[in-house]
């Protein structure tokens, strides 16, 4: 029995969902309402004590960290291979996963939280919001929520995030102009992770993510968007975030 606890099929939550559908798996989907702070509720903390989404439980065992979950899905189940068999391409898949997780992804996330998550919850009762922040287990997440809710991002950090996104998209464009997929000849976990982190950029950062400046990057997003597994993962979405994907339809 495989259960995935997730918010919108986007960013980190989208990674194990897409990998599972690409693998041809049926799993139990448990939507955790991030904007309702369900991920910090006592019920959810029993499942994942760090209070982060997504989480995955397979036969009673918790599997944490979205990138590691994707490798687990490929390693533990029968189905199409989601990692290249060539060791160098497999290495390059992991390299891109880290570049996305550590460099580009957090910048995209910061802008997303600044423009979407923060405004979506900001109007609620201030006392309630304060209490919600206080019960977050990880210090880093407390700071993130506090910045999103009170809108205390500095212009410098938002500008640095935009710079990193432009730098990252530029290098993805170069890589994808040399080969069809990030790791090499085959579609892999790096592409699934990349799509989930970056698919909103043609809307959020249209000045860098467009057909003129980054044609290979845009084609790569569209190629992944039309895959049946990705279309299936989008059916799990509930918010207006999902509207960003409409732009990728051919």
């Amino acid at each position, binding site marked *: 029995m495989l259960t995935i606890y997730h918010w919108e099929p986007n960013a980190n939550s989208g990674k194990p969902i897409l990998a599972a559908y690409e693998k041809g798996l049926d799993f139990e989907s448990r939507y955790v309402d991030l904007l309702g702070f369900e991920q910090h509720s006592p019920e959810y903390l029993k499942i994942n004590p760090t209070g982060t989404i997504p989480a995955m439980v397979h036969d009673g065992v918790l599997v944490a960290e979205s990138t590691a979950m994707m490798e687990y899905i490929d390693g533990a189940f029968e189905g199409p291979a989601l990692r290249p068999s060539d060791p160098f391409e497999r290495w390059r898949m992991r390299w891109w996963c880290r570049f996305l997780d550590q460099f580009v992804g957090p910048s995209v996330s910061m802008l997303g939280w600044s423009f979407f998550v923060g405004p979506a919850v900001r109007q609620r009762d201030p006392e309630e919001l304060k209490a919600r922040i206080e019960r977050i287990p990880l210090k880093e997440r407390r700071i993130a929520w506090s910045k999103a809710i009170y809108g205390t991002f500095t212009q410098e950090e938002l500008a*640095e995030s935009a710079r990193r996104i432009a730098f990252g998209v530029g290098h993805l464009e170069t890589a994808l102009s040399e080969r069809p997929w990030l790791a090499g000849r085959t579609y892999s976990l790096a592409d699934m992770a990349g799509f989930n982190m970056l698919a909103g950029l043609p809307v959020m950062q249209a000045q860098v993510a467009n057909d003129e400046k980054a044609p290979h990057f845009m084609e790569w997003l569209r190629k992944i968007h039309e895959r049946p597994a990705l279309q299936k993962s989008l059916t799990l979405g509930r918010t207006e975030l999902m509207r960003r994907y409409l732009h990728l339809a051919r």
Partner: protein
Amino acid sequence: MLELYHWEPNGSWLKPLIALHEKELPFRSRYIDVLSFEHLAPGFLNASMETRLNQEGEGPILVHEGRQITESLFMIEYLEDAFPQRPLRPADALGHCRILAWARFINEVFMPGANTLGCRKYLAPQLAGRDRAALKPLLDRISMKLLRDGWETALTNSYSDDLLADSRRKVALGVGRIEDALASSDRLVGSAFSLADIDAFAICNALPALTPDIVNPQATPRLLEWIERIRARPAVRAALATSRSGKPEQAFVPGPEHARWG
């Protein structure tokens, strides 16, 4: 033929040296003197995009069949994938996934903390008095701004109190997690020595000297025993013996950045 470009056996530089010796793989050692910046000189390797943009800061480069492999944890994963003999990774998916989950914490939280403290304590004094203007053309060759900034901070010894306090918090957090994990097993993942032990040991080996108030016999007896057991392994002795300074645990250079978000 495997060729490893490496500096003093500490931190990220230490991991492939241990893995190569554990797996008994012959390799050509290319020692780089990082503090003379020879790796930034024109003509040193024609760096691939993945070498230029790697996220661990200064670190080893493995060249195999003409291709460059960077990022020390993924480098030792590569050795597992390309050379399955004498495995350092559990065969089951859950064991491997646990190594990767540890690795994210170790490389993105624990390592930035330890590395900042190490650079502050050992690197900055060594760089004091260097001619920054003369170094600038070399440092300008670095693609990642965050790595250029890392060198600039070391050259000017401008570590903020907030950064040092946060670094100490991260080291204590990592040390606590490892000490806890060693309560139920003498390995971090599964019952055999694995990539997770190598990944964590490469950082922990410097901590008894770097942060004795956090790592000491009263506070962390299990961690210290684990360090001693790993130091006694022939492959680890061989890796540490590549040191030219005789003090590998004091060898720090700018590494991965502290997470900016989340």
